[in-house]
């Protein structure tokens, strides 16, 4: 069932949700910046194509305190840093970021379950937001994602001066039912369904004209070693600066490190994002297993396009959000790698 309300009522809709549970929406901080923030009356939802950082922060924040240790004499006190998580709603997540949650789930919720991640994940209701104006850097359709019909617990379209809402999962339905949509002048008729279908059609037509429309990942699951040893990596990685922008803006990159901070009167243990692009990544007593940038660069893309699909029924660990296309200082991005792989094959 698709419910239609006037887009003028969007602030009231947000207000209603925020009365139910904590609500996070993308907000424009400036022309350049849109970030997720907790909703407060007066905050306007960003209609930008995507937030600067991905929505993975909600479940897998850059820094996650884990435990505190305090020493008194010979006694060590260990304090769990976990706090009770309340239910919350993430509103306005784009289709690519929604798919990234599936990618992350397969890592963090597989045995052994990452309880920090699980805790945040299960308390969240994700309301996705269909794209109306995709950009040339978007290639989510390459991974079978429909930008005009995102997944999540519920989805939303904004078109023709209206907001259209549809519940997907039980959680999403429950959220929509808990709202007083009638007070917002909601209507759920066949016309709403048709309007949404027309909107989807319109966006699909736009996508066909994008330069990356024909981009398709090659299934290389049976060629793991061949690609690993392919000569393409030298040229591709040659100019990589070895910074971590691509990994940190990526919605599916999930590598982390666990570090201890000595505060002078105890130790604080925290988990933080790490990047396979760094030379000290997985550093061990004997050194690092990937000594050159070529190996590090290869690792990132092999993981996304070969290793991950091998272990996860052919699902790629890239969602085509285009963030790395935009942020890489030297534009050596996953699209160039995919094309080189294809040519090599």
């Amino acid at each position, binding site marked *: 069932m698709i419910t239609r309300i006037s887009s003028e009522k969007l602030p009231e809709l947000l207000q209603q949700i925020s009365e139910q549970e904590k609500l996070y929406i993308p907000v424009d901080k400036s022309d350049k910046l849109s970030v997720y923030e907790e909703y407060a009356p007066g905050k306007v939802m960003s209609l930008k194509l995507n937030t600067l950082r991905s929505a993975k922060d909600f479940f897998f924040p850059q820094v996650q305190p884990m435990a505190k240790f305090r020493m008194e004499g010979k006694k060590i006190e260990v304090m769990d840093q976990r706090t009770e998580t309340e239910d919350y709603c993430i509103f306005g997540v784009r289709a690519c970021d929604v798919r990234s949650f599936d990618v992350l789930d397969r890592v963090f919720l597989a045995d052994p379950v990452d309880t920090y991640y699980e805790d945040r994940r299960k308390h969240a209701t994700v309301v996705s937001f269909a794209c109306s104006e995709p950009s040339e850097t978007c290639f989510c359709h390459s991974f079978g994602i429909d930008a005009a019909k995102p997944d999540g617990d519920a989805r939303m379209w904004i078109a023709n001066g209206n907001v259209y809402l549809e519940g997907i999962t039980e959680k999403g339905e429950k959220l929509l039912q808990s709202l007083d949509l009638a007070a917002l002048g909601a209507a759920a008729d066949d016309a709403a369904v048709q309007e949404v279908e027309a909107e989807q059609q319109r966006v699909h037509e736009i996508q066909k004209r994008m330069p990356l429309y024909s981009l398709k990942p090659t299934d290389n699951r049976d060629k793991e070693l061949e690609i690993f040893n392919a000569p393409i990596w030298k040229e591709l990685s040659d100019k990589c600066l070895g910074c971590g922008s691509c990994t940190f803006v990526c919605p599916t990159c999930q590598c982390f490190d666990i570090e201890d901070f000595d505060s002078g009167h105890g130790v604080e243990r925290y988990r*933080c994002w790490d990047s396979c692009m760094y030379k000290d990544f997985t550093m061990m007593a004997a050194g690092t297993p990937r000594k050159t940038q070529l190996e590090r660069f290869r690792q990132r893309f092999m993981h996304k396009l070969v290793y991950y699909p091998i272990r996860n029924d052919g699902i790629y660990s890239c969602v085509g959000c285009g963030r790395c296309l935009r942020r890489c200082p030297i*534009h050596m991005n996953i699209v160039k790698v995919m094309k080189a792989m294809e040519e090599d094959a």
Partner: protein
Amino acid sequence: MQDELIKRACDLLADGTVNRVLGWSAGDFFYDITPTVFESAEDVKKNFVYNDFCGANLSKYLIAESQKEGKIAVFLKPCDTYSFNQLMTEHRLVRDHIYAIGIECDGKVSAETLHDAGIHGILNVQKDGDELVCQTVYGEKRIAFDKAEDERCRNCKSRKHVVYDELLGPEGEVLDSHRFDEVEKLEAMTPEERFSFWQGELSRCIRCNACRNVCPACTCELCVFDNPKSGVFSKAASNDFEDANFHIIRAFHVAGRCTDCGECSRVCPEHIPLHLLNRKFIKDIDTLYGDYQAGETEGQMSPLSAFTEQNDAEPSIVQKGGIH
């Protein structure tokens, strides 16, 4: 201009002056520019690109490339030549292995700026007088060139090539820039305002290290922030102190050596105006120790390595009202 560069690169490869050419190539879009080493004339003809989006400073790549066998030709924009000189001063380049060609630059554009201005679905961009005409999936959109330009180019300090083996185009002039205006604006604020400004900016830092890795002045084999024994090693800033610490130290380590090429701000994925920190140091150095432009000539003495016995300001000048 691109054709001229391609021709010159091919000639140099053909007559054996060099065995490699360092330039730029593009991918699916005309704006996704990657610095590239070309080894053959065919490769140059096929892939070499020079357009308004070639902002990357190639001097940084010479650190590694000039160590290799044979001579490499490199195309340097005016601001890249300053970095080149600075690297020469610091003995980071093998000069005999480099053939530097100075090329003209009218300011560079980042696709990010176009996206931020709401121009999406870009298929092509053409310069038309003072405007950029963007052909997009959503129709033609125009934007003033100086609006689309990188900040560093809007406030370009110099179009002069300070070092080259050969010039394509004019040598260029040092410009009167307004690059310190933004610094002065901050200086005029109260400390509380400045603090909240910087907290807002720096707290967004994700410690991706792009600013450091792209910086032609950052050439340490092992950065202090990557050294577990340094006491400041951390992969993520877990609080405001670590954000500030990283950026103060980063700027301090390049103070007196930073040529203000602006790469740090260009690459910052969070759009933090990092150049303001570097410029504050440059401005202070200019005010206190006389005008100094890092990279202007080879072999300069950095103001932080030099001193005068009698005339240097005491640190208390800061407490007495600051350096303006």
